[in-house]
Structure formats: C-alpha cells, structure tokens
C-alpha cells in the first residue's frame, strides 16, 4: 500500500489568526512530526464559518473533514482520535461540505475561498481559476463589456451601479492612459468579505482586474486597501508577484500581447477614502477630500484619466461571469439584483461569518435561522445593515429581502451587505449618537452639512439623552438629518441620517420621554 501525504488545512485568514490559528498550526506541525505522521499543513483562507475558527480540516478519501473551534491544546487529543484519517472527536464537525451553514450557500465569488492555498497559482488553476481571463483575451473589448453588462452585475460596494455600464463608459472614453482602481477600503463595521477574498483567494481579484483592464483598455491597476488589514496587504502583494512571474500580469497577459499590471496601495486610517473620489485623491497622494461629480471617474478619474473604480467583490465576481457566461450568473437573484451577494453576519450573533447566496433571501432568515439568533441568547432588538451609514431595522422589517430596491423602499440600504446584530440591551439613542460622532471624526471637511452637521448632531443627541427639551430636540435632530441627507456632497454626510432616523423611527422608546408620533409601526 502506498501512503499519501495527508493535507491538514489551518486557515491564515485574519479572523482565524486572531483566534489563535498560528498557535494551532505550530502545535500541529510539532505534534505530527513528533509522531512521525506523514502530514503537511496548508494555510488556506477561511471558509467563513467564523464561530468555528480556527477551523481545522483534513483531506480524506471521502472529502474534507472539519474540526473546530480548535485551540492549540486540543491538538494532541485530536491526533489521538485519528485526525489525519478524519477520526471522530468532540470537535469533529463531519464533512465540511455538509455543515448546514456552508451547504445552504451558493458560492460563486467565494467558490475557492477557504478551499485552496491562496498563494498557489496551480491550486487556483486546478479549481477553475484563469478560465475567465483566458476567454476574455480571445474576445473584443466590447464583447467582454457586453457579457458583464448582460450578467446584471451591480456594484457590490453599495451603490449598486451596473458594472458593465461603468466599463463601457471607460472603454469609450478617449485617453491613452486608463486605470482600474479596486476599492478595497472596506471600512464599514460588519463587513469583511473584501478582506476574506484578499486573504483567501487573491488571484480571483487579480484575474477580475486583468479582465477589466483588457475590457476597457486600461493597463494599470491599483488595489487601495486599509492599513488595518496588514494580512490582506501582505497576501495581495505576494500574489501579485506570483502572478507577474507567471505571466498573468505584465506586458503580455497570458501571452495575449495585451499589457496589464497592478500594485497594492495602503490607506492611512481615513474612513472617507472608501468614497470613490476621496480614494482617488488619496491614491494621487492628496488629502482624502471628496470631489464633486461630474466629472465622473469614468471620464476623469485617477490623475484625470478615465478610470474604472469597482469594489473588490464586483471585480472578484467577474471571472466566473467570463468563465460560465452572463446567463449563468444572471439566473441567480431577484428583480434587478442579479447573481449572488456575500452576506456578512456579524456582531451579537451565534453563527457568525460569511454567507454567499443569491439575492432574495429575507433578512430575518439570515439572522434567526442561518445566524441562529444572538450570541448572548437574548432577543434581537435591531440589526444594522450596510455599515455605519446603514439603517437600523427592527424585527418588523425582517421580511425585507436582500435586494437593492427592496431595502431602498424601506429607507435602508444593503451597502456592502454586512449585518450587525444587537440584542435587547442596545440603546438606540446611543447608537444614533455614535453614527453622528463617527461622521464627525471621519468627515473630510469639504461640505458644511457633514462637517458641522455631524458635530451638532452629537450635541443634540446628548441633549435628548439629558432630557433637555426632548421633543424640540428630536425635531431638530430630524431636521438636521434632512439637511445632511440632501445637502452633503457624498454618502458619508448623506447617509449618516440613515442610522439616526431609522433608530428614531423604529425605536422611539429609546428617545424618551415622549415617543415620536410617526413611530407607529
């Protein structure tokens, strides 16, 4: 009988590392060596089952078997129980693919995340990678743009603008120099999908950007990400080197004769740089001040050149569209929201993590059934969807399906599809105040409603909390929100009213003593 080296997977994703994955890997390496076991450790990305991290997997003839959450001190007993052959143990979760949280998903963009070694281009190819780019280099730019347009893909950063239309504008724009900019400035609390892709499947982002470059005539790409993401930066930079050495990037992408190259740039702790025009200024080496639009970045973007600026998930969804076709992708979803969305379930929730699914799943489903309710075991009071600029929804709105238009119809937004769950101990006035405080800290200062309004908002919220003329101050806060919503230059000042107004509307008791009139729900 021949023996094969057993592969043991221990994630290198930041969430796993933050929960001790490096210690587990070290203990595993030492213990397998000491026992003379023929095993090798692969540091994969995360499967997104974060309540089970560090999630250790072992390859068996029947498929991968999972164990978690594993601590370094569990390693000895796991090996005693026969981990290398998928042996049973108290931490054994059975076959990874059969874990309900994973089994219920439709993984298109995240198909490889957590499965492969993120820095193995061979692994990437073996799991379908580069097929989209291969197809693209054999096509006319307009045909690539048409395929992306037909797929129905819309900007996953939150705005939901059709990706293909954006590309078409850049393709048709005059200019010898064009850029692809990936907005990886994922600053919204409750979101980590971009980070997971960059750490778990960086080549899919590189491939998506290369396709975008070939489709629009851009030859240079930038990934602008956050200094708070050191692991993502390191993995991305290494993956770019590997891709360049393999000819995926460079003067002739996959031998096509078409050039595309890219680099990673790091922000410096400014939330507003997630706004696309502030991001462009930051990339140029300026203060991250928002630009007035028009001109659109597609016409005059980075260094005044035509620029595609797309979110990580938008770009990372392109390879599968170019591989499987527009119709394949478009067939998932509901209404005008086509394809899949990686929902990030976070905060006070039992089963937290990343859940990729077709658009249309009800909000409550993700929280009660998939998420399993709160981690604290207390009732859910509110969920904030879409980051610090997203609305707080009460249970009464849990039937809202994940769909750009459905959320907008209820004065909310999907944003980057992060959900933060709060139990009944949350004080919504405090959350509303925080929204204003955060806006005040992060405002770029260019427009008055955002710069001044947010500070006044904090003061008014404090007056309400102190019981000073509460009725008058609630009206003032609502009026201030109206001014910010319609008078701000960008989404920071413009959307900060979403959490504030939704908190006031849906949780009037927290803005006591007198409940708001319009709050009858």
């Amino acid at each position: 009988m021949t023996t094969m080296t057993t592969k043991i997977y221990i994630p290198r994703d930041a969430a796993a590392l933050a929960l001790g994955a490096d210690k587990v890997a070290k203990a595993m390496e030492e213990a397998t060596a000491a026992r003379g076991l023929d095993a090798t450790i692969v540091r994969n990305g995360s499967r997104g089952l974060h309540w089970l991290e560090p999630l250790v997997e072992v390859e068996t003839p029947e498929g991968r078997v999972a164990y978690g959450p594993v601590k370094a001190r569990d390693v000895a007993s796991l090996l005693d129980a026969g981990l290398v052959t998928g042996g049973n143990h108290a931490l054994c979760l059975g076959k990874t693919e059969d874990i309900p949280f994973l089994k219920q998903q439709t993984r298109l963009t995240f198909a490889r995340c957590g499965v492969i070694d993120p820095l193995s281009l061979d692994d990437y190819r073996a799991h379908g990678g580069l097929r989209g780019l291969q197809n693209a280099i054999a096509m006319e730019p307009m045909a690539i743009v048409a395929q992306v347009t037909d797929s129905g893909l819309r900007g996953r950063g939150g705005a939901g603008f059709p990706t293909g239309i954006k590309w078409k504008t850049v393709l048709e724009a005059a200019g010898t120099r064009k850029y692809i900019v990936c907005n990886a400035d994922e600053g919204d609390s409750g979101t980590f999908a971009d980070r997971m892709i960059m750490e778990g499947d960086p080549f899919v982002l590189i491939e998506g950007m290369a396709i975008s470059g070939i489709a629009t005539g851009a030859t240079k790409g930038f990934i602008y990400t956050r200094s708070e993401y050191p692991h993502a930066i390191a993995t991305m930079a290494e993956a770019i080197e590997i891709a360049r050495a393999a000819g995926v990037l460079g003067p002739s992408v996959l031998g096509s004769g078409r050039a595309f190259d890219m680099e990673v740039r790091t922000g410096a702790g400014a939330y507003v740089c997630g706004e696309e025009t502030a991001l462009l200024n930051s990339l140029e080496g300026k203060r991250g001040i928002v630009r007035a639009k028009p001109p659109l970045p597609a016409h005059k973007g980075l260094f005044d050149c035509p620029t595609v600026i797309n979110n990580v998930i938008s770009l990372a969804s392109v390879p599968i569209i170019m591989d499987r076709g527009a119709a394949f992708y478009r067939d998932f979803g509901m209404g005008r929201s086509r394809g899949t969305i990686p929902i990030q379930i976070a905060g006070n929730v039992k089963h937290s993590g990343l859940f990729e699914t077709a658009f249309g799943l009800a909000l409550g489903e993700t929280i009660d059934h998939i998420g399993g309710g709160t981690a604290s075991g207390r009732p859910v009071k509110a969920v904030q969807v879409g980051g610090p600029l997203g609305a707080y929804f009460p249970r009464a709105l849990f039937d809202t399906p994940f769909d750009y238009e459905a959320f907008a119809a209820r004065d909310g937004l999907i944003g980057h599809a992060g959900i933060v769950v709060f139990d009944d101990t949350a004080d919504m006035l405090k959350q509303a105040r925080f929204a204003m405080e955060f806006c005040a800290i992060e405002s770029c200062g260019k427009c008055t409603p955002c710069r001044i309004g947010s500070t006044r908002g904090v003061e008014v919220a404090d007056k309400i909390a102190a019981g000073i003329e509460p009725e008058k101050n609630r009206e003032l806060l609502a009026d201030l929100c109206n001014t910010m919503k319609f008078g701000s230059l960008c989404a920071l000042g413009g959307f900060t009213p979403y959490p504030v107004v939704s908190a006031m509307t849906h949780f009037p008791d927290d803005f006591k003593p007198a409940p708001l009139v319009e709050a009858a729900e």
Partner: protein
Amino acid sequence: MNIHQPRADVTGRTLAIVGELKGLEGPLLPILHEIQHEFGYVPQDCLPVIARELNLSRAEVYGVFSFYHDFREHPAGRHVLKLCRAEACQSMGGDQLAERAKRLLGIDFHETTPDGAVTLEPVYCLGLCSCAPSAMLDGEVHARVDADDLEALVAEARR
C-alpha cells in the same frame, strides 16, 4: 522659515526613502508610511524635505500628513494597543472593554502611559466583526477579547 535645522540622520533617511519611492505614481502616501515605519512617527523635519523633493508646497505635505489618522507627529509608546470601537464590537461589549482598558492602563484613548510602555488608540473596524470584540497589539490581531484576554494583552504590552 523653519528655525530648527533638520537632524542629519532624519534628512538623510528621508532623502533615501523619497529617492526610492518618488518614481511611484502618487508617491506621497507610500513615502509617509515608510517614514513612519522608519522612525515610528513622522518627524516634522521630514516634511520640508519631502516637499522640496516632490516639488510640492510644505503646506500641501503637512495637509496630507495631518489629514490621515495613521500618521503620528510624536513617537508612540513601545507598544500600541488598538481597540475596535465600531458597531459590531459595540454589540459585543466593546464599550465596556474600552472602559476597562482605560482603567487598567490609567490613560484615555490617544494617550501613552507615563512609563512610555503603551499607547492606547481607537480603531474603527479591523474586519473581525464576526468575532467581536477585537483588538490589535503591535499589528497582531486578537478576537473575541474578554476581560481576561484584555488583562493578558495589557500585561504583555506593559512588559
């Protein structure tokens, strides 16, 4: 005009860093990051040097330096403890954890302990929202931080 003469090592290192990075498109942020990496903060003596080398005004360079939360004007403590203050961490007791950290260290956010050991800073999201509350000690991430974990982190930082 600046009445302080830049220290030779600061100027020399700054020139070397600028020389290495000025070929990049939009080099100012990479340069400031590298300077902070080199010195642990951005010595103000660097700014006129950068301005001259990049053909920018000193006001422009100072404007960029001061806009971003990451860049420090003064050295931090030997260790930097960042606690996430954003919503997902709030939902899991982040505020109480922050109060505890302040008490344990005897300082507020943006302050350094008198012995120069620890600087405490807020951070708005480490992307670890699914395992909140989270913290970062000298670039190393920690999740599901409870009171005991925090005490261990503070003890580690104090050493």
